[in-house]
């Protein structure tokens, strides 16, 4: 080893002089022959002498060509390193470091090997209270009997109200669904072998059927426009890869789901531009705010490629009405941008208001369908987040083609698809399941909101989702983000309940909190309310 190193060092050292020449080369080309000449034009400029040609035109032209050269150089290799200034300088820095190190130490041990800059920023510990709370609650989870002093989880929007229904179905049907036909012969090649990466056709048909059942039977979904992914998370990321390039941006109305910051930005290099909604409008989206955010981004030189909305909204729980959807579509057409509509809570409604899918609007009117993409999944409406099934529904053939190819990075496993195909095809079960779940969510919502109201905490009027958006601005001491996080911290550490502060959702007004109530049993509600009360009173 030492052998090869000592052999290599001498070859590396002469490398430096051979690498360097190009940079002084440009200026020394004139100086090589006549070193005096080089200073003459500069003299002319500095001292104001040297005549017009030597003093102004020649240096002017030289400077201009120099700029031109720099410009060309930069655009010559555009795709090699788009975030050029920062990353290339970082590369240079560690290149020189590692080589100088190996030159110095005779043992030849180089510095620790580095991971990529993007991995470094991803690997950093969680900063958002959303993830900190989730982590703390998972380490010390409340249990009525086993751990009554544990942390109650109100930060995760997971529905556990109807697990009994799913359980009964699985007990009865699991064997049949996996093992297959009536002859009891296991069709192993349907489970074990390679399957289409974007989902089996039977599964797409079943999911499309479930979606129209959930969204009111007026809309029908075309299975060939579906791409299945392992959860809605990769579905969002895949769409983001398909619609925007590095450095482009999406408009996102705030408050928004904290996970978007990871799903939309981490690996894609896309940015999110918050479009603030306010309590005075009931946090409804306004097109003027969108327009303003769009124009500001443009002034900053940012290319906006789309709008990302959640409908029903997460964390507020309100729904976009038809009129808003129309004006959104108009806005998108005017600016020539895309719309991603995250409709993952479409079936988890409990109010009297009716949910309107983007797909329904597109079916009824002659809009440009190519710019609309819908996200769906079975994690919320079928209460099966563990199954990891997400859906991209798009009218755009290019997006579908790209998403199908990208599905190789997030496929759903075949046994899971088999179970779900037969579960979703059992229409009677699904019908009963949807109805029962809605009733149960509603009951929990009413009980939970009433409990909060007793403490003087009002919730925004909502009609969907597994959470409510509670106004605790009266309880925070300084009326700012710091006060909000102090209350959150107290609730988590003293009250032992984990809820999501509005600042984690980029809400512009302090004092709002998202509380998910579907992980609780009905008996837990008084416990939660008591715990909040204890904190509020201190």
């Amino acid at each position, binding site marked *: 080893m030492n052998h090869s190193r000592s052999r290599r060092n001498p070859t590396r050292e002469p490398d430096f002089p051979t690498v360097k020449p190009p940079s002084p080369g440009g200026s020394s080309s004139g100086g090589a022959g006549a070193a005096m000449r080089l200073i003459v034009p500069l003299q002319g400029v500095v001292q104001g002498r040297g005549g017009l040609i030597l003093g102004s035109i020649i240096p002017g032209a030289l400077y201009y060509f120099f*700029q031109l050269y720099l410009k060309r150089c930069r655009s010559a290799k555009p795709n090699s390193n788009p975030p050029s200034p920062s990353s290339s300088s970082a590369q240079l820095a560690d290149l020189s470091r590692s080589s100088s190190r190996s030159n110095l130490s005779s043992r030849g041990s180089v510095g620790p090997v580095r991971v990529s800059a993007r991995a470094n920023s991803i690997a950093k510990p969680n900063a958002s209270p959303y993830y900190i709370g989730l982590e703390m609650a998972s380490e010390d989870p409340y249990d009525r009997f086993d751990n009554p002093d544990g942390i109650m989880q109100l930060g995760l929007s997971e529905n556990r109200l109807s697990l009994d229904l799913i359980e009964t179905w699985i007990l009865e049907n699991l064997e049949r669904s996996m093992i297959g036909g009536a002859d009891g012969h296991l069709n192993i090649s349907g489970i074990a*072998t390679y399957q289409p990466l974007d989902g089996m056709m039977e599964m797409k048909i079943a999911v499309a059927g479930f979606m129209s059942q959930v969204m009111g039977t007026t809309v029908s979904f075309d299975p060939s426009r579906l791409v299945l992914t392992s959860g809605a998370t990769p579905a969002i990321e895949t769409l983001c890869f*398909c619609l925007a*390039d590095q450095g482009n941006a999406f408009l996102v109305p705030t408050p928004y789901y904290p996970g978007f910051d990871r799903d939309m930005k981490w690996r894609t290099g896309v940015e999110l531009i918050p479009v603030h909604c306010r309590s005075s409008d009931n946090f409804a989206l306004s097109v003027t705010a969108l327009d303003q955010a769009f124009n500001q981004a443009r002034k900053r030189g940012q290319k906006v490629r789309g709008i990302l909305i959640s409908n029903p909204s997460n964390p507020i729980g309100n729904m976009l009405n038809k009129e808003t959807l129309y004006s959104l579509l108009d806005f998108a057409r005017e600016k*020539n941008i895309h719309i991603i509509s995250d409709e993952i809570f479409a079936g988890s409604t409990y109010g009297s208001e009716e949910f309107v899918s983007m797909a329904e609007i597109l079916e009824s009117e002659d809009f440009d369908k190519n710019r609309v993409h819908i996200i769906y999944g079975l994690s919320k409406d079928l209460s099966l987040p*563990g199954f990891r099934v997400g859906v991209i529904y798009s009218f755009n053939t290019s997006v579908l083609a790209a998403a199908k190819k990208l599905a190789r990075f997030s496929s759903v496993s075949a046994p899971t698809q088999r179970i779900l195909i037969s579960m979703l095809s059992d229409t009677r079960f699904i019908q009963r399941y949807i109805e029962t779940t809605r009733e149960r969510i509603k009951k929990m919502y009413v009980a939970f909101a009433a409990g909060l109201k007793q403490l003087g905490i009002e919730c925004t009027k909502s009609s969907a989702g597994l959470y409510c958006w509670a106004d605790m601005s009266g309880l925070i001491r300084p009326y700012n983000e710091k006060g909000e996080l102090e209350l959150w911290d107290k609730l988590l550490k003293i009250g032992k309940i984990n809820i999501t502060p509005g600042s984690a959702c980029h809400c512009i007004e302090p004092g709002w909190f998202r509380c998910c109530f579907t992980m609780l049993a009905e008996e837990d509600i008084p416990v939660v309310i008591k715990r909040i009360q204890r904190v509020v009173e201190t």
Partner: protein
Amino acid sequence: MRVIVPLQGVVQGRGGLVLGSVIPCALFYLLQLYFKRHRSEPTPPPQTLTEVSELNRSLSRTHLSPRGSSAPACVSTRANSIVKSSDSPFYVGLKRVSEDPYDELSNPEGVIQLGLAENKLSLDLARDWLAETAKDSILSGGGSSGPLSMAGIANYQASDGLVELKVAVAGFMSQVMERSISFNPSQIVLTAGATPAIEILSFCLADTGNAFLVPTPYYPSFDRDLKWRTGVEIIPVPCRSADNFNLSISALDLAFDQGKKRGLKVRGIVISNPSNPVGNLLNRETIYTLVDFAREKNIHIISNEIFAGSTHGSEEFVSMAEIIDSEDLDRDRVHIVYGLSKDLCLPGFKVGVIYSSNENVLAAAKKLSRFSSISAPTQCLVISMLSDIRFIQKFIQTNRERLQRMYTKFVAGLKQLGIECMRSSGGFYCWADMRGLIRSYSEKGELELWNKLLNIAKINVTPGSSCHCIEPGWFHCCFTTLTEQDISVVMERIRKVSETCKSPR
């Protein structure tokens, strides 16, 4: 009038020095500066051009037509290139087979699949086990007995895999890799297949514009997995038939220097061991020189060991994990990719593994596993399958025997046709030398033969050019999707084509 004056001065050479030269020169310079600034803000320059033209178009359209319909919404440049990227013969062949698959009884004229590295030799074992235990294993959350735990499969689980599954997979890995090494479950991140495992490592080890050294011939999908979304580049390191396609350090060194000269920052080496498509194993010596090389250049090593248990020769498989076990210095730079698709014959289950000792990589990979997690019912199923030590032992042994038998038969069949294979001892495939059958010794000749095999003989093999092999005439043939009876059919079909190839000579 005034506006034209400076231009007049320039064009006609009049107008004095200030008006005729200095002012236009300065104006032009400022204009260029303005353009430059404008261009460097949004990142890739070619895009901005299309954007500009598009914007104009949509605006003028809205002004023109009262209906206000604008230009079609365009997708991102990267999506466009993914859509347009022409499929290599590897993918073309796979598609052909899926449209018209051979079946001994129902479609005897169909295309026979020799292009997909999938093992169907031991499916019967997996089927028997599943038929017996599938239901209980899912319902009991992977434990051998116990009450139904709905919460264990329906609810949100850790996105990087259940701890029980990590323990089970770690046990399986050391069983497969001959017990000499133990794997630490806390250094495992599980993903939905080895494909995302490779992509996540590529994201974690390299930034956009960085590069990996990859010895050729390599698995055709690396071009997708390592490059597509990450923006990372592959520098091929050619291996030659004269060296039995073994990796040489001098070739690596040369490729590294070339990459450096091109201004590419090399962040690592990606190797497959057992190699795909050749099927040979890296010996201990080569592994140590590789690690030395990586240390000297301060780069990473990704070792793709997905075929570790599918060996059929007498040669010993040596895992990179031995390095992690023994050499303190280099732990952080070695990362292993594994999966259950090959050694457990369960590609449909989509279970992939990242094994690393680098804390940063593990932390980032765990967070990135949110984009490709395995569904809980499948995890439970696999936990109880892998925990059934007796079944696994029998499975590995039987599978190796069957693999060996098929390999021997298939290679012997090819030899009768005068086609020699590289000596190999791992994988589901052999690397066949058909240089004698191609008309022009070039990539064109190779693809002509591939085309004939696919369309006349109706067998799908992967041409070496899809694997970036530098020498034409080599083909990758997977024999584990066949039954033993199929071998004679395949040989008969190849013979027909090879005769037409030889006749004109």
